[in-house]
């Protein structure tokens, strides 16, 4: 049989509901434990309840009188609490405002940084954005333009006024070349190349003449244009310009020219 420890005996001694206590049931059957419990009971019985000296009925009133002068009224404390509460509320509001402003500024900075990063990664975006929408970027290779122009001039030289199928494509090609020719001419003027600029100016005039023929090229107009081309030695000049490009300015003139129309 397992006997009760001293701690269990003490717990049993102070238990208010001894009947429900398992230690109490054990004590009924165990002589050793019941003797130990009796000894504990005897020892604790020696510790009598200390009875405090009697206080008269006015004791409470005396206590109150002694402490009352030191107690602040709660009304004042409530006001100070309210005051502190208002300041606390204002502090929270200010902190929130600073947070919102900080978040707004951080957002703006981040947005600007993002745009700059995107622009750096794709530099063509900015010119495209900056250019008006009606403008188109025309990239012309001068040598290709001169080759096409030469071909048109050859066709014009051998054009037959009676053949409608031959004249109509000539006019369309002239319209197509006109825009590119202007870009090339402006670029030549900018690069200080008067020979090229002059040749392209004469070509520009001729192309404009061809392109503006609304009712097709009649015999008189075709003859006039052919004479104009021949008098200017335009075909020859274009061929010379073409031939010099690879020798004199291979890199510069084969470089794409940017311009707007």
């Amino acid at each position: 049989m397992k006997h009760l420890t001293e701690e269990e005996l003490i717990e049993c001694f102070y238990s208010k509901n001894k009947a429900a206590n398992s230690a109490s049931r054990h004590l009924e059957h165990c002589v050793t434990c019941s003797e130990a419990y009796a000894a504990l009971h005897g020892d604790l019985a020696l510790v009598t309840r200390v009875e405090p000296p009697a206080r008269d009925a006015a004791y409470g009133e005396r206590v109150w009188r002694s402490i009352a002068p030191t107690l602040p009224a709660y009304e004042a404390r409530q006001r100070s609490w309210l005051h502190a509460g208002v300041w606390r509320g204002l502090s929270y509001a200010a902190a929130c405002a600073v947070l919102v402003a900080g978040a707004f500024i951080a957002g703006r900075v981040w947005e600007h940084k993002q745009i700059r990063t995107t622009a750096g990664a794709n530099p063509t975006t900015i010119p495209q954005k900056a250019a008006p929408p009606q403008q188109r970027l025309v990239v012309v290779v001068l040598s290709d333009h001169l080759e096409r122009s030469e071909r048109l001039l050859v066709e014009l030289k051998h054009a037959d006024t009676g053949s409608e199928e031959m004249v109509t494509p000539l006019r369309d090609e002239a319209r197509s070349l006109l825009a590119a020719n202007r870009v090339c001419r402006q670029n030549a003027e900018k690069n200080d190349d008067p020979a090229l600029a002059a040749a392209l100016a004469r070509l520009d005039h001729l192309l404009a003449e061809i392109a503006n023929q609304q009712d097709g090229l009649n015999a008189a107009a075709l003859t006039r244009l052919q004479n104009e081309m021949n008098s200017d030695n335009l075909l020859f000049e274009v061929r010379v310009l073409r031939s010099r490009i690879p020798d004199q300015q291979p890199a510069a003139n084969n470089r794409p020219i940017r311009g707007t129309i």
Partner: protein
Amino acid sequence: MGKNDHAAIRAILAGDKEAYGALVERHSQSLFRVAFRITGNEADAEDVVQEAFLRGYRKLESFESRSNFGTWIYRIAVRCALDKIGGHAADETSRVAGADDPQLAEVQVADGAAGPDRLLLSGEIAAMQEIAMNSLTPTERTAFVLRHMEDCTTDEIAAALGIAPNAAKQAVFRAVQKLRRRLAPLKVKI
């Protein structure tokens, strides 16, 4: 009484300081009783009562309306008493050191209770009890007083002392062990 206490507390918090007087008058006796049992000294007990009511007033805003004011202020008083006897720990230590000497204990008893044999024995028991009680630590003494004299449960002791229930139970256990050792010589005489 509980309703009256709550009404008084509402009045105090609304600015009526005098309403606290009713609470003080109503609970002073019970606070003095437990304070005296813990401190074992009338003057200290009165100090504890005043200190408890002062602390209670300052903490009144934290008092929950569902609680019982009597229980609440009682716990505050127990803490104040514990602080009081804790502050006197050095004095108590010297007194306990003297109590270890049986001869000195006999002298103290003889001085305090002259007269017939029975009265002498009764005085001796009271003196030995006081010596034994003084041998306890403040927590053990308070826990034992609450358990043995105030009939508090372990949970109530724990709540009053602000410790875990198991720690409260251990404090009572250690107090009983120490008291039994101190009071053992008396058993032979009886």
